[in-house]
């Protein structure tokens, strides 16, 4: 009941709809840009960009590759950072806590809402990419990284797995956002801090001197979904990513619970 009303509020909000709309534009922009420029053979740009002209199904994939470093963490940071701090800034947090639902349950529902947004955001990119790719370019059998070829049906299954991988990747960031959100009553601060952290994590991941800590950064396996485009599928990074994100959800979820249960709610 609480969850339903939370999801309803979240997805009826103009800001949420605008963010999802912007994410839907990413694959459309990519597809149109590739369509109007004829040169598609250069090795520059993100991987697979040059393959779009031959196969529209790659639009969804390229859009995900482009969205993961910036667009997806940004929108997730906004939603996750807003969870508790947003209610606090509106002065509605204490009314929510007056209802006999309990702080723990409220926090769980808020996190579930953020996770639902991760799912919605990823799905929007994939679905919009598949539709615009099929409209503008030929749809053929897909060549995997391994050089093997699979039909569009098999590719659809892999797209679902791919979306699952990306959602999984964003769960750790959502937990961090939830924790930061319990620290402040200024939602913009929590949002900015979450987005900045995702950028910092990715920068640290690119410094060769910090190789020792890189496997523990929450963004380390964000681009590991290439393993789903091999024949046979390599499940290594799926498992590692699940374990990594579970660690972050445990740590920051636990910290958020503790902070929220002991917090003096004044607004």
């Amino acid at each position, binding site marked *: 009941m609480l969850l339903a009303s939370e999801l309803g509020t979240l997805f009826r909000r103009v800001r949420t709809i605008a963010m999802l709309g912007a994410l839907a534009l990413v694959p459309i922009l990519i597809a149109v840009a590739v369509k109007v420029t004829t040169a598609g053979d250069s*090795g*520059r740009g993100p*991987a*697979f960009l040059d*393959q779009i002209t*031959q196969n529209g199904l790659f639009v969804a994939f390229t859009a995900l*590759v482009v969205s993961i470093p910036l667009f997806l963490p940004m929108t997730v940071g906004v939603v996750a950072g807003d969870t508790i701090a947003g209610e606090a800034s509106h002065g509605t947090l204490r009314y929510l806590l007056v209802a006999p639902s309990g702080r723990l349950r409220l926090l769980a529902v808020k996190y579930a809402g953020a996770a639902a947004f991760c799912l919605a955001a990823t799905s929007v990119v994939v679905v919009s990419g598949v539709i615009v790719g099929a409209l503008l370019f030929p749809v*053929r*059998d897909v*060549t995997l*990284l*391994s*050089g*093997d*070829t699979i039909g569009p049906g098999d590719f659809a299954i892999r797209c679902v797995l791919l979306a699952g991988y990306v959602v999984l990747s964003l769960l750790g960031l959502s937990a961090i956002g939830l924790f930061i959100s319990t620290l402040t009553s200024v939602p913009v601060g929590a949002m900015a801090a979450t987005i900045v952290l995702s950028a910092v994590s990715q920068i640290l991941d*690119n410094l*060769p*001197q910090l190789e020792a800590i890189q496997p*523990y950064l929450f963004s380390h396996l964000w*681009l590991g979904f*290439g*393993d789903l485009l*091999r*024949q*046979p599928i*390599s499940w*290594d990074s799926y498992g590692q990513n699940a374990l990594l994100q579970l*660690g972050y959800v*445990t*740590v920051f979820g*636990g*910290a958020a619970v*503790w*902070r929220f249960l*002991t917090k003096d709610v004044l607004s």
Partner: protein
Amino acid sequence: MNRYARWIPAVAVPALVVAGAIAVPAVASAAPTLPEKSPAQVLAMVADAKGVSYSGTLEQSSNLGLPQLPASAASPHAAASDSTAADLLQLLSRTNRIRVYVDGETKQRVQVLDDLAERDVVRNGSTVWTWDSKGRKATKVTLPSKGAATKSDSTVTPASLAAKLIAAVQPATQLSVSSTASIAGRDAYQLTMTPKTAGTLVRDVVLSVDAKTGLPLQVRVDATGQKAAAVTVGFTAIDYGKPDAKLFDFSAPSGAKVTTKDLSQAKRPEGNHGAVPQGADAARPSTVGTGWSTIAVLPAASDDRSRGLQSQKLFGQLTQKVAGGSAVQTSLVSVLFADDGRVLVGAVPVSALQAAAG
């Protein structure tokens, strides 16, 4: 409640997670106990392991003490002349994941898993395909049928092959079967080869062999004066089931650049070394020293190939000027590009190369 006490769980939970991350792998790699075997018996096991079917994941990592290169030098967008060298450097300076699928002696597939890319070699009978997803390049090679060459092989038993191998390496190498280990969840014998000479950079080579199947599971090369292994190639997971037959049915995908090479008619040279032109003979490398401290001397190339190499940007970043030329010093191998054009290579310190160059 105390202001600070409420933060205890926030500290305790990460500590637990980190402790778990460290403790779990440590428990998993407890050493097994296996019946004792001599080095000859272990090598015979390796020679006997033919026609095994398996699939597995390998990890290859190097710790050669190479200078850290800027990412741009190793990126695929580097200048074309640099790209082969950069590819090689990438292979040497980072951890690579490799998957192998083997079905007997005639069907194999090797996949090098890069970030959002892959390189494959697929062998099915006498057809070999190579595939590079970055350039979408495929090569089809038809191998010569083995014919008479295999007959002489069949008279060699694993035990005699092992004995021959041991006789060949014994003068320079101390062989021992050291502690048993667990590699990729399999009990394994560890055959340690230690050079008897102190003149080499190689401290020892450790070969881990599956105790049940005789398949080599890991090779580790240790360098003197370095705690971390210089080079490690080994399975992280292995499954002795027959791989899916479809994996070996490779054909070039549409839109790929395909080159074809047919070696089925190519004849082996039949001992007619007299026919080799003089120029090639002069360019043959010579060796100085024996055993582990052998130094290979490549004579100066008549063309300006080496000069082209030296003008590359990477060359300047990798080498340092020493007396008599410029040198690359890694923890395992040294290379000296002498001023007179010769190239000296060996698993020895640079000073030994300088001495050999005279």
